[in-house]
């Protein structure tokens, strides 16, 4: 449904005016994607990773500097108008006018996609029902709650029944109930045959909602696959060790544990924490406790957990997504 190769975009930095050279910032540095029909596909990455730029390029809002891309059979470079007819796009901030109602926005949106007036009125009515907007859909948009507004935004994005829907950070700033509702709507759209591409910096959203995830950092895809497969790449288990705070404690503990044969990878977290990647956590815990004890380091807490997408991110980039 979506195929891209080497999609890239760089911006000229604005700060250095007329001082001669103008350094460019590579926002997106060659992205290859292959999204199948009926998938919920996620871009996971920190703010500034290039997720939104990629999405805006695919939605014809920014012209890419290079690469190739086809969306639902239309070429992004030679037929942007064709792409526009086949896709829906919902920006992070939405885009409704305060003084008009959701119904009026839906009718206008349908008409901008070419529907005749009667057909547009009908489509708006259908969307009000499908997205449960009827209770407030005739009030001005300024009166809506964040969750209501988001539902309107998504309804606007799919009023013309596109093959592909792009959602930029669809649940940012929403309360848990609205968030769950948005997820539900996205899944419903998929069962209707739509391909949905979302960007997110929420680990749980990528994990729970997306069929496949591309982890994006510094304008590149650093890992891609189903959440399950990505997490499987990280060896077996993660053990988090909390140490008694003290100078150089974490460093000393790391020196003790690094040579242990069962350990795949070790990350020091702050002054008093270790993150260990190992095959079989349950079996290894007694051994690593003994090793630490032998070196005179007292562990405060030991926690065993399954790897998360953050561990994948950490393994690929050396940084934690939650910290960046």
């Amino acid at each position, binding site marked *: 449904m979506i195929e891209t190769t080497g999609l890239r975009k760089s911006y000229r930095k604005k700060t250095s005016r007329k001082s001669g050279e103008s350094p460019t910032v590579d926002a997106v540095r060659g992205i290859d994607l292959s999204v199948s029909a009926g998938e919920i596909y996620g871009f996971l990455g920190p703010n500034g990773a290039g997720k939104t730029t990629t999405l805006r390029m695919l939605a014809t*809002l*920014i012209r890419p500097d290079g690469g190739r891309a086809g969306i639902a059979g239309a070429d992004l470079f030679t037929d942007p108008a064709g792409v526009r007819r086949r896709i829906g796009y919902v*920006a992070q*901030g939405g*885009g409704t*006018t305060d003084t*008009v109602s959701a119904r009026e926005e839906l009718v206008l*949106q349908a008409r*901008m996609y070419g529907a005749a007036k009667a057909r547009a009125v009908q489509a708006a009515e259908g969307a009000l029902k499908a997205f449960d907007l009827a209770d407030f859909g005739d009030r001005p948009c300024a009166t809506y709650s964040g969750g209501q507004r988001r539902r309107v935004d998504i309804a606007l994005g799919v009023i013309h029944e596109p093959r592909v829907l792009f959602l930029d950070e669809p649940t940012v700033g929403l309360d848990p109930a609205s968030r769950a509702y948005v997820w539900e709507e996205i899944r419903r759209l998929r069962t209707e045959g739509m391909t949905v591409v979302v960007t997110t910096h929420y680990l749980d959203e990528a994990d729970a909602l997306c069929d496949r995830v591309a982890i994006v950092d510094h304008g590149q895809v650093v890992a891609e696959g189903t959440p399950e497969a990505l997490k499987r790449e990280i060896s077996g288990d993660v053990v988090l060790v909390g140490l008694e705070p003290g100078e150089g404690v974490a460093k000393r503990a790391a020196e003790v544990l690094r040579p242990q044969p069962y350990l795949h990878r070790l990350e020091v977290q702050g002054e008093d924490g270790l993150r260990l990647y190992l095959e079989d956590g349950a079996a290894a815990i007694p051994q690593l406790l003994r090793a630490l004890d032998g070196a005179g380091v007292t562990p405060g807490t030991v926690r065993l957990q399954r790897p998360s997408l953050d561990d994948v991110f950490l393994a690929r980039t050396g940084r934690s997504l939650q910290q960046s």
Partner: protein
Amino acid sequence: MKLARDTWLVFQRQVLLMIRTPIWIAVGIIQPVFYLLLFAPLLKKVLAPDGAGSYADAYQVYVPGLLAVLCIFGGLFTGFSLLGELKAGIIERSRVTPVSRLALLLGRALREMVALLVQAVLITLIALPFGLRVSPLNLLLAYLLLGLLALMTSAISFGIALMVPTDAAMAPVVNTIAQPIALLSGVLLPLTLAPHWLQQTARWNPFYWAVEGMRALFSGHVGDSSVWQGLLVVVVMTVLSVYWSARLFSTRVR
């Protein structure tokens, strides 16, 4: 065909938004009325050497200038509404639809033109009791000129809005452009009072030609060469402005 339909679609929505906040009519009229009441009477004395014997004569000279300045300033400041819509994501939402890009611009410029013409008609009506007399045909031609002026200045303003990033930057830019334009078109006092060098400078200002044309129409000289010259200059400028701004609109990434 698609352009006309899309423009109509955008225009309709814009008019709806305007009707929902009718305060603009009051704001657009109060200031010109103050000028009519508190400034125009001065002109009778000032223009007396040029043969203005009555208040009616003074208004014949002053009202066209006032209407022109209304359209020039009103149009040049309309870019603020576009900045607001850009910020709210409304333009972006439109840009991902197949709607014509030119229509997004034209629909908005036409809304501004209609708004300014409504104000111009009201001000003309208010000036009638002061002794303004103008034939309906000449008035219609004058409104045509005004409508084009509004279209031109709105298009220019949208272009500026696309180039400056914030409201804070837009206000001084527009003021700096609008002030010399207004002064050099003789909207307050006719430039016949001006020294030679000032008159020569004004000839480079397209708005000067528009105001001259307007004045000729209001004084009943429809055959005066300044009428067709004014119309020609304004038509050419309008086409150029719309073209410039439409190009910016379709290429600029926002």
